């Protein structure tokens, strides 16, 4: 890794700026709607709505849930990443794929599996369990990638200075991956704040659940907008906290030491505990839910499964998710490149503003886009393009992070050489920077693809009339507690989502190491 040296190229290419502006406009679109809507109520009334005892209690409950899930998921994610990347735990290559698979499991599907086993499960522990187990890969992925990039010589020096390996892991290794932990924890916190399916199924009253109620049952879009704004405010606080925790990025490799092979840390007597930990995480996150679904699917096979409907829903799911991944990537590239190469207060602000949408519950984004559809984009209302737009709004921040990491891995010196060989900035981007960031770009696309496959609330509201995805079909059956009928849809969803998820660990985690080998 070469530290991105800061040549002050004051004017980024116009194309990039325009692209980034489009991305930001798209990302803050729902916010504009929320403010407009809440404002129509009058500010004093909006504040009154927020100050209600019930609303404050609700807000507190969401914050506690998000906080608990973030802490637990960070601990699991960091521990799993360290074991898989830096220790000699048996089967590291296999584990590197298995530990990210829970990403393929929708939160509502996992909740549904647990409830089908113990219908009386308590709401708070149930929601925390499910959200933690499906969200920890958001921490695992960046941390594992960062661990791969660390210079092993530093750990060796610390060992030779008389430090115990465990102390080295805590004082040196973990401190260096702190920015990666922070960015992963940010995603988990925003995910936990905005998740709708799991709390809804466990009947745990959090913000998203109540917003859904306000919109759907009472059809009170103004109250929904005010509550949504409160959620955005909390999310903004989380984003600021992340910037604070991340600190200054003083973790670049110093000097020109060639990166060398990392030797795994011997766990010795700790190996059985390490294996038990990974097995437990896998069993609870994926194993148990899949066992329940396969059990219900077998039950369903005794009756007739409408395979044609499953295939239709699968087709829509795959096609729309693919479109979402492509569109998101196209908009994420300008923002990611600007942030990585033309770092300034302004570009950092651009990046962070796209996180706002990630914190918005899918249902709020969907409501906002329904409004946009009805008023401005009438021709695409309840058509595929509007649904794709919703996905882009929701998942843009996921892709921007990976694009940025990928671009930062190309040494600036290469771009400068390309410029001196007579290439314009745009050509340099297309021929030097982006091709090398390709693994990271593919990783970002895979992440968006998987997340779009699982997306429920926005799809429920914006899908073309009469067409279903696996997620929306499943939702129909869960609301009727018809586990047997829903199970084949989950099995199809998880199996197909598992493929890009498995690729994800290769792209995101190995990309850094692979690029470095070229420089040996």
């Amino acid at each position, binding site marked *: 890794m070469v530290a991105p040296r800061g040549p002050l190229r004051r004017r980024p290419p116009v194309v990039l700026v325009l692209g980034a502006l489009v991305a930001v406009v798209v990302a803050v679109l729902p916010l504009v709607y929320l403010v407009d809507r809440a404002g129509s109520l009058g500010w004093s009334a909006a504040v009154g709505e927020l100050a209600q005892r019930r609303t404050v209690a609700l807000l507190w409950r969401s914050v506690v849930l998000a906080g608990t899930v973030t802490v637990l998921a960070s601990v699991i994610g960091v521990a799993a990443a360290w074991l898989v990347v830096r220790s000699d735990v048996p089967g590291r290559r296999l584990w590197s794929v298995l530990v990210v698979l829970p990403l393929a499991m929708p939160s509502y599907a996992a909740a549904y599996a647990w409830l089908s086993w113990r219908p009386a499960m308590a709401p708070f522990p149930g929601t925390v369990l499910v959200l933690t187990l499906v969200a920890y890969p958001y921490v695992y992925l960046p941390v594992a990638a960062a661990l791969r990039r660390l210079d092993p010589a530093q750990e060796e020096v610390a060992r030779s200075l008389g430090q115990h390996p465990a102390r080295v892991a805590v004082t040196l290794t973990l401190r260096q991956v702190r920015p990666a932990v922070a960015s992963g924890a940010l995603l988990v916190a925003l995910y936990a704040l905005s998740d709708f399916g799991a709390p809804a199924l466990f009947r745990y009253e959090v913000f998203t659940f109540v917003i859904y109620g306000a919109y759907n049952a009472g059809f009170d879009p103004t109250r929904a907008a005010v509550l949504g704004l409160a959620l955005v405010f909390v999310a903004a606080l989380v984003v600021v906290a992340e910037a604070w925790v991340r600190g200054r990025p003083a973790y670049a490799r110093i000097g*020109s030491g060639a990166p060398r092979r990392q030797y795994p840390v011997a766990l010795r007597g700790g190996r059985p505990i390490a294996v038990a930990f990974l097995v437990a995480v896998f069993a609870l996150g994926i194993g148990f839910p899949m066992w329940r679904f396969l059990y219900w699917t077998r039950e369903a096979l005794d009756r007739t499964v409408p395979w044609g409907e499953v295939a239709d829903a699968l087709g829509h799911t795959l096609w729309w998710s693919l479109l979402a991944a492509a569109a998101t990537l196209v908009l994420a590239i300008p923002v990611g490149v600007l942030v990585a190469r033309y770092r300034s207060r302004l570009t950092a602000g651009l990046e962070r503003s796209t996180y706002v949408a990630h914190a918005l519950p899918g249902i709020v984004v969907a409501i906002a886009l329904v409004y946009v559809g009805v008023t401005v984009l009438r021709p695409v209302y309840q058509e595929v393009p509007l649904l794709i737009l919703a996905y882009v709004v929701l998942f843009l921040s996921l892709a921007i992070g990976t694009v940025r990491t990928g671009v930062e891995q190309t*040494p600036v010196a*290469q771009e400068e050489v*390309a410029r*001196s*060989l*007579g290439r314009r900035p745009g050509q340099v981007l297309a021929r030097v920077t982006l091709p090398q960031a390709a693994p990271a770009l593919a990783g970002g696309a895979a992440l968006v693809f998987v997340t779009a496959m699982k997306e429920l609330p926005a799809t429920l509201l914006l899908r073309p009339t009469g067409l279903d995805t696996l997620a929306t079909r499943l939702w129909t059956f869960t609301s009727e507690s018809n586990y047997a009928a829903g199970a084949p849809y989950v099995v199809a969803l998880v199996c197909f989502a598992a493929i890009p998820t498995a690729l994800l660990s290769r792209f995101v985690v190995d990309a850094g190491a692979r690029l470095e080998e070229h420089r040996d």
Partner: protein
Amino acid sequence: MTDRALACTGVTKAFGGRTVLDGIDLEVEPGTITAILGPSGEGKTTLLRIVAGFETADAGTVAIRGQVVDGAGRPVPPHRRRVGVVPQEGALFPHLSVGANVGFGLARAGRVERVAECLELVGLSGTERARPDELSGGMQQRVALARALAPRPDLVLLDEPFSALDAGLRAQVRAEVCEVLRRAGATAVLVTHDQQEALSVADFVGVLLGGRVVQHADPVRLYREPVSLEVARFVGEAVVVAGRADARAGGPGGPGGIDTPLGVLVPAGPGPYVGPVTVLVRPEQLVLASTGTGVPARVVGRTFLGPDALVDLAVDGLANPVRARVGSWALPEPGATVGCTVAGPVAVFPG
């Protein structure tokens, strides 16, 4: 003026209040290799980056072949300067083959031929299809050079191009690269902090100290007649002794001689020198023999280096020992007393 390959006039650059370049004046003749020699962190790389167009100067002008590229109106962007760059570790594009790397800056017409020609120039014919990571460090550096030369630039800039190579390979790659530059008839500016590198390969050396080019001369002249003691110490090891010049005929050293504790020495410069002066002697100028020749000196320390050795000598009239560089076959014993003479002319500074 217009036929200068590069002309920097008063180039100044500060980063966050710290002045790195403080009025750089530098002229480079076409077809020559110029080394910019300076300690680490003295702004050598910054100067190269300004010439290449990756940074802009705060003040002053940069002209390439008479065309002002920085300092008059908008700076010419790097891709329109016709300046080739070879960075520290080559910075080959790892996702492209060697051929595609070399052809990166070429138009489609005639690309294949020119790539083959350039690879032949650097002695790597037939490696077009290889991937950069299959090459050794030295080969990668030669590919980087071929890539920079391919579009026939007006100027090639090399930024510490050999520092990433290990010592054994370094001298060899250095010689090869400079041979290639000369055969290609290229004008090159090479940045280095290695005195030996600068003195051995360049036609001219510019010494960058304190943000200024304090001396710009050919290597022999720079080494023998540095403009200041600071430059003298920077380009090589220096023995500095106080002396007295006497212009009178019939003085102790005859006309123009400098009287020092090491004997009466002959100044290299024209002089005239009068009164107290400071004399620069290079360690290899101190010749040791048996007592009776020159001034007596006692061996107080020695460092064996293989082909030669450094001997520290205590001499009457000097507070500190002086250091001589001698062939390692003639190493005196510690504590022995030897006779010491100074061979050749010495640089003399007033005061």
